C-alpha cells in the first residue's frame, strides 16, 4: 500500500517540486546573506551601542519574517502551479479538447500492442471526424487480476485493459469492470459480430468484455506422416470434414497414433502444450463434460463424465502410449510437432507460434510451407456421430467501472470505428488472431490468408472456458492436477475423480457448484 501512496504523491507533486526547487535557489541567496550578517556581528563588529544593538535585532527579526513569508509563498505558489500546469497544457492547445485514456498495457507483448493499435486506429478515425477532440493514451503496467484489484481499490485509476475471458468473474466480483452490453448494439457491430462470439461473451446475463480477437484450439496433423501411413490425398483433404461430421473420432486418432509409433515414423502420437492450457479443456469438451451452468452462473461437477475423462488419459498415456508420460514438464512441445516428432498437436496458438519462430520469411514462405506439410481440424468427438468441438481463447477489452460520461461516449464511438472490417485486418495478419467480426472474412486480404479462411468455420463449434471466479483459480487447477496424477503418479481414473471431488467440495462454496 505504501508504494501506491508514494506513486500518487510523486505524480501530483511533480510540477510543485520543480517550481519549488527553482525558488529555493533564490531563497538560499537570502539565507546566505543573513548568515554572513550574523557572522560579521559575532566575528568583530560587536562594539555597538545599546540603540544600535536594538535596531540590529529588530532588522534581524524583520529579515527572518520576510524570508519565512517568501518561503511559505513559494511553497503555496508551487502547489498551485503544479495543479495549474495541466490546465495550462489544455489552454495551450487552442480550444482542442484533449481526452486522455489510461490503459493497463503490456508493451512487451506483441499481441497486446497489436490489439491496442487496432483500438488506436478507431480513435484516430474519430479525431478526423471530430477535429475538436484529441485523444492521448497514458500507459500503466499490465497487472494480474489480484494486483489489479488492489490498485483499483487503492484508487489508482485506469480506463481499460485487455485480458482473457477466464478473468471475467473475478473482475466482476471485485467490482472492477462494468458491463458493456452497449457494444453489441453499436452500428458497425450489431449485425456483424459472430453470433457464437456474442453468446460466449455473456457472463451472468451481461456482456462484460468487448471481444477483441480470438484464437481457436484446433487439432493439427502432419500431412507427410499421414501419407506415409497410407492415407491418400483425398483422405487427407477430407479429414477435417470427417472430423467435423463426427465420423473420425478419438478412437480413430488413437489407432492412427499407435500405427505411426509402431512404424517408427514418430516418437509421440498426440501432444498438447503441457496440461496447463485450453488443450485439456478442448478434450474435456469433446468428452461431453459440462463444467459451467450459464443460466445459474454455477460450476458443475458431473462425476461420470469426469471418470470417462480420466479413463481417456489412463488409456492414452499408459495403454495406447498416444500421449507421452513426460507431458507435464515437456519442454518444446510445439517444436516436437513442427519438426515431425509428433503426429497430432492440439493447442490454441499453434499456427501463430510456428509462424513467429519460422526459419525463413514468415510472411512469404511460411504459409506455403504450412500448407504443404500440415493441416488442421476440430477436436474430434469421443463417440461417432457426436459433434466435434473447438476450444476458443477469447481476448477481450475490459472497461473499468470508473469510466463514465464523455470518456465512455468517445470510447464507444472509437470502438465502433475499430470494428470496421478494414481496421480488423492488421491484427489478424500481424498476429494470426481471428477477428470477431464476420464481414472481415469477406475481405480479399483475409481470403488470401488461408489459415484464417480455412478455420473460420470452427467458430461455430467453439466453446470457451468459464469466466466464473472459481473456475480459473480452482476448478481448472484441480482437474489438471489430477491429469498429472494419472500421468505421473499412476493414479487410476477412480482415484483421480475422488480426489477432484474432494478438492472441489473443500475449496468451492457449496452455493457456487452443482454436484451430479
Amino acid at each position: 500500500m505504501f508504494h501506491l501512496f508514494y506513486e500518487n504523491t510523486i505524480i501530483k507533486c511533480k510540477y510543485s517540486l520543480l517550481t519549488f526547487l527553482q525558488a529555493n535557489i533564490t531563497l538560499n541567496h537570502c539565507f546566505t546573506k543573513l548568515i554572513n550578517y550574523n557572522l560579521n556581528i559575532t566575528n568583530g563588529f560587536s562594539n555597538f551601542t545599546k540603540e544600535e544593538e536594538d535596531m540590529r535585532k529588530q532588522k534581524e527579526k524583520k529579515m527572518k519574517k520576510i524570508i519565512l513569508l517568501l518561503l511559505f509563498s513559494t511553497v503555496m505558489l508551487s502547489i498551485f502551479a503544479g495543479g495549474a500546469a495541466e490546465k495550462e497544457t489544455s489552454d495551450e492547445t487552442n480550444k482542442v479538447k484533449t481526452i486522455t485514456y489510461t490503459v493497463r498495457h503490456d508493451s512487451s507483448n506483441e499481441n497486446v500492442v497489436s490489439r491496442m493499435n487496432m483500438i488506436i486506429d478507431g480513435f484516430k478515425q474519430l479525431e478526423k471526424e471530430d477535429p475538436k477532440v484529441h485523444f492521448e493514451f497514458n500507459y500503466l503496467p499490465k497487472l494480474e487480476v489480484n494486483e489489479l484489484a488492489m490498485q483499483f481499490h487503492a484508487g489508482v485509476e485506469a480506463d481499460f485493459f485487455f485480458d482473457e475471458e477466464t478473468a471475467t468473474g473475478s473482475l466482476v466480483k471485485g467490482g472492477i469492470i462494468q458491463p458493456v452490453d452497449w457494444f453489441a448494439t453499436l452500428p458497425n457491430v450489431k449485425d456483424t459480430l459472430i453470433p457464437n462470439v456474442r453468446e460466449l461473451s455473456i457472463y451472468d446475463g451481461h456482456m462484460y468484455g468487448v471481444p477483441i480477437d480470438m484464437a481457436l484450439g484446433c487439432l493439427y496433423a502432419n500431412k507427410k506422416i499421414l501419407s506415409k501411413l497410407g492415407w491418400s490425398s483425398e483422405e487427407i483433404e477430407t479429414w477435417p470434414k470427417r472430423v467435423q461430421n463426427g465420423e473420425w473420432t478419438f478412437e480413430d486418432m488413437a489407432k492412427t497414433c499407435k500405427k505411426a509409433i509402431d512404424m517408427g515414423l514418430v516418437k509421440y502420437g498426440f501432444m498438447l502444450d503441457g496440461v496447463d492450457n485450453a488443450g485439456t479443456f478442448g478434450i474435456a469438451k469433446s468428452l461431453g463434460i459440462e463444467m459451467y451452468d450459464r443460466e445459474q452462473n454455477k460450476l458443475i461437477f458431473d462425476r461420470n463424465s469426469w471418470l470417462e475423462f480420466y479413463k481417456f488419459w489412463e488409456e492414452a498415456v499408459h495403454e495406447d502410449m498416444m500421449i507421452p508420460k513426460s507431458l507435464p514438464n515437456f519442454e518444446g512441445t510445439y517444436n516436437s510437432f513442427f519438426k515431425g516428432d509428433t503426429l497430432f498437436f492440439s493447442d490454441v496458438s499453434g499456427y501463430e507460434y510456428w509462424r513467429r519462430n519460422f526459419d525463413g520469411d514468415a510472411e512469404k514462405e511460411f504459409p506455403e510451407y504450412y500448407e504443404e506439410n500440415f493441416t488442421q481440424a476440430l477436436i474430434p468427438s469421443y463417440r461417432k456421430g457426436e459433434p466435434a468441438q473447438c476450444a476458443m481463447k477469447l481476448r477481450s477489452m475490459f472497461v473499468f467501472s470508473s469510466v463514465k460520461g464523455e470518456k465512455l461516449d468517445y470510447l464507444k464511438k472509437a470502438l465502433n470505428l475499430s470494428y470496421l472490417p478494414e481496421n480488423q485486418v492488421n491484427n489478424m495478419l500481424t498476429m494470426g488472431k481471428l477477428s470477431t467480426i464476420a464481414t472481415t472474412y469477406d475481405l480479399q486480404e483475409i481470403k488470401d490468408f488461408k489459415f484464417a479462411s480455412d478455420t473460420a468455420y470452427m467458430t461455430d463449434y467453439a466453446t470457451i472456458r468459464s469466466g466464473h471466479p472459481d473456475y480459473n483459480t480452482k476448478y481448472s487447477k484441480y482437474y489438471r492436477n489430477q491429469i498429472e496424477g494419472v500421468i505421473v503418479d499412476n493414479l487410476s481414473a477412480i482415484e483421480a475423480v475422488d480426489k477432484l471431488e474432494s478438492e472441489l467440495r473443500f475449496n468451492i462454496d457449496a452455493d457456487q457448484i452443482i454436484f451430479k
Partner: protein
Amino acid sequence: MNYKINLRKKLYPLWFLLPFLIMISMFFGFPIILTGVMTFTDFDITYRPSFVGFKNYQKIAMDPNFFKILAITFTFTLVALAIIMLMSIVISILTQYFVKRKVARYAYRTIWLSMNALPSIIYAVVIRGVFSPYATSGANYICLKLGLIADPISWLNHFPLVLVIFTTGFLNGANGIIILSAAINSIPEDYYKAARVDGTTEWGIVTQVIIPLLKWPLMYLTVTNAISLISSYNYILLLTEGGPNLRTTTLSLYAYQNAFENSQFGYGAAISIFVVTISIALVLVLFKLFNFDEMIQPCRIDD
C-alpha cells in the same frame, strides 16, 4: 533534576534507534499485525473483508492436501539443510585447512561466492535443460551412455522433489562456505600444533579441534538456513511450480498460491502464520540440539 538527566541519558540510544524502529515497524511489524488480523477474515478480491473467527485455521486442519504438503515441507527443509551444512563444512575444511597456500584459499572462496552472483532463474533454466526428457539432454545422455537407463527419463516428472532439494541445497551452500571459511581461518595455529604434538591425526584435528570450535557459526548457519528453507520456494516455483500434482508444494508455496492465485488472502495468511509457528518450533528444537543455553553461559574463568 538528577532523574531528568538519567532519563535523558537512557533515552539517547532510543533517538538513534528511532529511524530504524520506524522502518522495521512499517515494513515488518505492521504487515505482521495486518497478516494476523487477515487470518480472521474472508479477505478476497472484493477487498471487503468480514470477520470469520477461526474458520481459516479450521480449514487448514480439514484441507485434504494439508498433511501431504506438511510432509513435503519437512522433507524439503531437513534434507536441503543437511546438504547445505554438509557441503559447507566439507568444502570449507578442505579449502581452508588442507589447502595451505593463501592465494588458492582466496580463489576457492571466490569461486563459491560467485555462485551467488547469478540470479536463480539462470540456474533454473540450466537445470531444466540438463534434466529435460529428451535423449540428448545432459542427464539422459550420460545415463544412456553408461547403460544406467534404457529409455530417456522425464526427471522433473519422476524425481521432482529430489531435483528441487538438490538444486536448493547446492546453490544455497555458498553462504555457509564463506562464513565457515572465515571461522576456520580465525582458529589459532597453536591449537593445531598442540593437537599434532599430542599425536592427533588430521582426521582427529578436524573432528576434535576444528568442528567443536565452529559450534557458534554452525548453529547460526543451521538456524538461519532452516528458517530460510521453510519459507523459501523460489527454485520450486522456477523448476516445477509446485507440481506435478503438488509433489513439490511446500507450505509457504501453498500459502502464496492460495493468496495470490486463488485470491483467498485470509486463508493464505492463516497458512503463512502456521509456517511462522513451525519455524519458531524448529528453531527451538535446534537450540536444544546445540545446547544453546550452555553456549551462552558466561565464562567461569576470571579474566
